[in-house]
């Protein structure tokens, strides 16, 4: 078995037994990427190989991640290495500081891969088709998208070009690509992981999280990146447990709610079947599955596209050509420079969202759109509170469909927005959720299931996800050789 095809925990075992060195692992990944990148395009500005960023400062203590490489999404700051959010407006940008997640990884002795993973521009999208570098491909079927916006991270892990990857999730951007690519993606509780150094999209929704080959690796990576950070005033000072300690504990008697609103029209019959089989498996493991209701689910997409675009329009005001990135040439005065820089620097979807968000916040429309959306957000959150008062977890499909083909939705923004229907409520409620593989379509595309739990209940999610993964060994079906 090649090093590149192993999980992080397997590689940690080899390192501990001195059967491989950290350099061996990076070299193996690099050879793999050199052979497969042309087909997958998971990384941006890839020039024939992968290297790790030399660590600065001291490594603190001995972490299970020590010596293991982590790939980073292009919207997470890496000091002195390109961080461009796959946007022309940030072309060539090398941040003068590391995101907190990156410095935590460095302190744990992990090595950071110096080229970044592809994404939709500023994380605006569900397919990576909005990247200024062009789309990534789904390693299971290269006619299909890998999902998005963290599609590069998911494709890299699925194609064995990365061991671990970080993504960010504002409305499903970790979970949906994980589902499309047959890997494991976790969006932690809002406030669990510091957002310092994550280029902000929608500040009340964004979270950074792991994309990995299995559930244990997800827990290992969360162990290192979670925790309070004085540099992010929305990070929460809650103790960080050892998330690997709950793996393998029994799930007998756990109460699982299955919301009827997620199993309705529009859902692909093969996705539905996979989920029903997974529920059967949970029952065999001794869990109790019952139908529940999240009655405001149908409003989640409209609420999200007001709140997320409103926050984005204000966050993206900082890209004006003054302090970093692209500046339009030959501008007349200052305002002309701002407008031209933004007009030429942002892609179509970014402009669409900035204008939508500015509109929702503008005089005369604020109450009808933004304020109303914040109120309906309360109703959506209360739906979850009610269910979690009687259930440990909620299980749903991650996406109503398996991976779609490139170009299938890119001409119709609303159709693309609706593909986020199963993941968006989680961000509005701030709760954690994981996506893990739960089957395949007839054409061999992976199907993902989503497990949600209450605030700071990541351990409950890991316990159930791990029990399922062990029971069915969902990775049994191998990806067709690239």
């Amino acid at each position, binding site marked *: 078995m090649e090093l590149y095809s192993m999980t992080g925990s397997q590689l940690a075992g080899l390192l501990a037994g001195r059967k491989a060195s950290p350099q061996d692992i990076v070299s193996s990944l690099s050879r793999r990427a050199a052979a497969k990148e042309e087909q997958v395009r998971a990384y941006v500005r890839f020039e024939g190989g992968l290297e790790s960023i030399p660590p600065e400062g001291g490594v603190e203590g001995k972490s299970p991640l020590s010596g293991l490489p982590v790939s980073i999404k292009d919207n997470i700051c890496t000091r002195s290495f390109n961080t461009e959010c796959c946007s022309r407006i940030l072309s*060539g*940008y*090398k*941040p*003068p*500081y590391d995101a907190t997640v990156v410095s935590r990884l460095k302190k744990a002795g992990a090595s950071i891969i110096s080229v970044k993973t592809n994404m939709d521009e500023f994380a605006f999208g569900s397919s990576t088709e909005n990247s200024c570098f062009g789309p990534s491909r789904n390693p299971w079927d290269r006619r299909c998208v890998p999902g998005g916006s963290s599609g590069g991270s998911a494709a890299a892990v699925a194609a064995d070009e990365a061991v671990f990857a970080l993504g960010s999730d504002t409305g499903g951007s970790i979970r949906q690509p994980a589902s499309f690519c047959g890997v494991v993606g976790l969006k932690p509780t*809002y*406030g669990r992981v510091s957002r310092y150094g994550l280029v902000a999209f929608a500040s*009340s929704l964004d979270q950074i999280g792991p994309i990995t080959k299995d559930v244990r690796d997800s827990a290992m990576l969360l162990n290192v990146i979670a925790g309070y950070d*004085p540099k992010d005033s*929305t990070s*929460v000072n809650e103790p960080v447990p050892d998330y690997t300690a709950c793996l393998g504990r029994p799930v007998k008697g756990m109460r699982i709610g299955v919301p009827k609103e997620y199993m309705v029209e529009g859902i692909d019959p093969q996705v539905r079947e996979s989920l029903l089989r997974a529920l059967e498996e949970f029952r065999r493991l001794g869990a109790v599955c019952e139908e529940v209701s999240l009655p405001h689910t149908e*409003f989640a997409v*409209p*609420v999200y*596209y*007001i709140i997320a675009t409103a926050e984005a329009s204000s966050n993206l*005001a900082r890209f*004006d050509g*003054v*302090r*970093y*990135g692209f*500046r339009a040439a030959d*501008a007349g*005065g*200052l*305002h*002309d*420079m*701002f*407008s031209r820089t*933004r*007009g*030429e620097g*942002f892609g*179509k979807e970014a*402009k*669409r969202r*900035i*204008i*939508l968000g*500015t*509109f929702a916040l*503008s005089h005369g429309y604020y109450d*009808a*759109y933004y304020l*109303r*959306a*914040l*109120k*309906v957000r*309360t*109703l959506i*959150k209360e739906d979850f509170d009610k269910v979690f008062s009687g259930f440990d977890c909620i299980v749903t499909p991650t996406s109503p469909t398996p991976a779609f083909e490139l170009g299938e939705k890119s001409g119709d*923004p*609303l159709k693309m927005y609706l593909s986020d229907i199963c993941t968006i409520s989680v961000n509005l*409620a*701030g709760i954690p959720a994981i996506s893990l593989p739960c089957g395949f379509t007839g054409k061999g595309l992976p199907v993902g299931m989503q497990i949600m739990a209450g*605030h700071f209940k990541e351990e409950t999610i890991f316990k159930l996800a791990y029990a399922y993964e062990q029971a069915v060994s969902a990775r049994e079906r191998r990806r067709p050789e690239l």
Partner: protein
Amino acid sequence: MSDINDKVIEYTAKLARVKLESAELGELSPQIKGILDFIGKLEETDTGDIEPTSHILPVNNVFRADEPAQSLPVEDALSGAPRRRGRCFSVPKVIE
């Protein structure tokens, strides 16, 4: 919410400091109108006395001790500037 026309979208783009070519406006405008029509679905909800949620966790103002600490060196802060002069960012003239 039906009073949204090209003029409103054009004006909003101006507010957002995004210069749009007329072909772009022609493409974006109907798309944005379509999305807003879809969002209009929210009018079905009864939100009379519901409290708005702008932040999901019960976190209010976060204070820290007002003590001087190391900040980003000027050279680092200027390292990405498209144009600089000395220790400053340089921009086109604001006042004629």
